[in-house]
């Protein structure tokens, strides 16, 4: 008995509880769309700023992380809320559908049957099966119904995609909270300590692999390293670009290489010599008793001069190694000078002459060291995401229904899709044609 029939005034529907309203808001697709657009707009703005500044002030800021977390929460609630209805939709299809209801489906056809009217549904079932649909006849209150479907997994594509995105976000968060990122490096024979991971990295050898004859292509630096903790070896590998050493969730990547100049400083009056002093570009060495400082400005492995008179290198191969250096004496910087490998140069200073020799050079390797325990989750999440998208877009669920009306000798065929109406229309066209062909045979 409804209110109208009873003559009572209509009672307004009770509003949802505040908790329910909050939950509805947090799980709404509208909120998800707004948050995604917001993230897009902020990201556009951030890319217009210098990258380091954007990372420090935007991408890692509490409010950006907050929006991301809010988006993740929305995604989670939205997904959880949809699992039940999707399950029912996929596994409990409504099969009590009348002839009229099939005719009214947005994609439907009617076919007049004469020849096959005696057993109309078995003919249609054969056509359904020929088009890849599983077909079964169901006894419904309104009569017999032929039901065919394909791509049931497609209903869960969005759920898998959303959950995979959450797994990726959680993996990234777990990796960030439990991991670290740092840099280290050195020359052949050197060892450095990684405090964050409590291990030593011993660099046995740094060598260069030249990729072309002229040495114009940036070479690939390779280094043999051993990782030890309290004297015990925990990792060993030849590391180079694209080939990191991985252990305990830690990865040691080759990041770049540097040139190290070996400088020998001799006093021509006494014959005393110091060195070889190992200098990276930008390093400075102070000769105490002479009160001078020698700065290594740049190492040129294959030295030449530009037409404008600036030193440069023709390539990476050390065909003509030269060091550009500068002397600072009593706080006064002198003009830069060049020092070629094996060719001593005598420099006059207030405290007497000084002989400088570029006696050698070597390479140093620079490594990025990162611990990321979230990596497996990120990988699984990524693979799941692709699977989810494949399910969403390529396993389009399709359902077809056929009901025969004996009075008009007409078969009504209707089709429904979950996402892809175009596909349903195309399939319907094929089914209709094949039904007609069957009738004409």
């Amino acid at each position, binding site marked *: 008995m409804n209110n109208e029939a009873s003559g009572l005034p209509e009672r307004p529907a009770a509003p949802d509880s505040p908790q329910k309203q909050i939950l509805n808001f947090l799980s709404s697709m509208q909120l*998800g*769309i707004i948050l995604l657009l917001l993230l*897009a707009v902020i*990201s556009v703005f951030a890319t217009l700023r210098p990258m380091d500044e954007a990372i420090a002030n935007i991408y890692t800021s509490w409010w950006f992380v907050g929006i991301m977390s809010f988006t993740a929460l929305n995604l989670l609630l939205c997904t959880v809320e949809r699992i039940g209805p999707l399950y029912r939709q996929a596994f409990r299809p409504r099969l009590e559908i009348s002839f009229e209801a099939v005719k009214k489906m947005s994609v439907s056809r009617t076919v007049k049957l004469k020849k096959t009217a005696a057993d109309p549904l078995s003919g249609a079932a054969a056509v359904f099966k020929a088009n890849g649909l599983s077909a079964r006849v169901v006894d419904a209150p309104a009569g017999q119904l032929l039901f065919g479907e394909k791509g049931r997994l497609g209903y869960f594509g969005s759920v898998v995609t959303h959950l995979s995105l959450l797994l990726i976000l959680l993996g990234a968060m777990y990796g960030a909270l439990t991991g670290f990122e740092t840099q280290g490096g050195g020359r052949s024979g050197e060892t450095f300590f990684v405090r964050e991971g409590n291990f030593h990295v011993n660099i046995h050898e740094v060598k260069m692999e030249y*990729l072309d004859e002229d040495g114009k*292509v*940036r070479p690939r630096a390779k280094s043999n390293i051993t990782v030890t903790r309290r004297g015990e070896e925990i990792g060993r590998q030849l590391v180079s*670009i*694209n080939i990191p050493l991985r252990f305990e969730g830690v990865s040691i990547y080759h990041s770049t290489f540097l040139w190290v100049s070996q400088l020998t400083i001799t006093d021509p009056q006494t014959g005393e010599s110091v060195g070889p002093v190992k200098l990276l570009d930008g390093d400075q060495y102070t000769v105490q008793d002479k009160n001078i400082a020698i700065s290594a400005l740049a190492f040129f492995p294959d030295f030449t001069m530009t037409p404008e008179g600036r030193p440069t*290198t023709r390539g990476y191969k050390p065909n003509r190694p030269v060091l550009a250096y500068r002397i600072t004496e009593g706080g006064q910087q002198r003009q830069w000078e060049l020092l070629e490998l094996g060719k001593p140069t005598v420099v006059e200073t207030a405290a007497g002459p000084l002989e400088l020799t570029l006696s050698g050079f070597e390479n140093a390797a620079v490594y990025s060291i990162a611990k990321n325990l979230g990596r497996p989750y990120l990988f699984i999440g990524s693979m799941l995401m692709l699977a989810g998208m494949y399910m969403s877009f390529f396993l389009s669920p399709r359902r077809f229904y056929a009901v025969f009306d004996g009075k008009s000798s007409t078969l009504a065929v209707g089709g429904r899709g979950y996402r892809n109406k175009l596909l349903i229309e195309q399939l319907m066209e094929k089914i209709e044609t094949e039904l007609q062909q069957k009738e004409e045979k």
Partner: protein
Amino acid sequence: MPVIIEVAPAALFVENLFFRLATVAYLAATIGYLLNLGGKKEWGNFASLSLRIAFVLQTAFLVTRGINVERVPFVGHFEFGNLFIWSTALVYLWTEWRQKERYYAVGAFLLPLLLLYVIYVNLPMVNSAHRPLPPVLRYPLWLNIHVSTSVLGYAGFSLAFALALMWLLRTGLEKTVAQASPFMKTVFKAIPQPKALEDYMYSASAFGFLFQTAMIISGSIWADASWGRYWGWDPKEMWSLITWFVFAVYLHARFTRGWSGSRTVALVMVGWVAMMFTWLGVAWLLSGIHSFG
């Protein structure tokens, strides 16, 4: 330190010949599709054939380019641009093969867009020098997957954008078609119904979105092995993500919220602009670690 691979004059001639011929064939296909749209139906098959020839010629160009640079021709603006054009033609030809002649009208909107891309890679400012791979890119598995998925994603989005343009013209003409010139009436008739266009647009966007996702994922896995981190907030990475966000909004809005018409068309157009900025804007206006020339 720019390094150029020395290519034999004969090999260079063959490469350039295929490139120029493909350009001409794309131009012929564009003209053919436009004439077909304007009512000269006999030009439809000519356009389709020209496009197939252009595709074959560009395939030949990519093969010769690969031989000349001694690697897959997937690196740098020039090679990427060519691969992108090639994949867009491939995706269009595949859909045309499925949809038959009724799809020719789409060609009349996509091909001018494709021709713009072709003109771009022909510009002198786009460096077409033969360069070897820097060490970081010498990881054929991920290079191939990352670039292939990238161009297929871009292809899907370009097709969706062309369909969005069609939708705009079709709905714009709807109110004025009675007073329109005979030519515009013919054009109007040749363009599919807005609903059908929206369905095509959705399919093209979904295709692009799937490959854009695969591109971001493969890039992350590769970056993790090469640079020690799977995400570095680099402008190229961020603009790929922005494009992904926009198309994610579009797909959700259309499917779950039931958006249709101008709002979804606007989202597809914004998504295409974001994609173009990822390709061109980041390269010319912003700097980052994705600067491979």
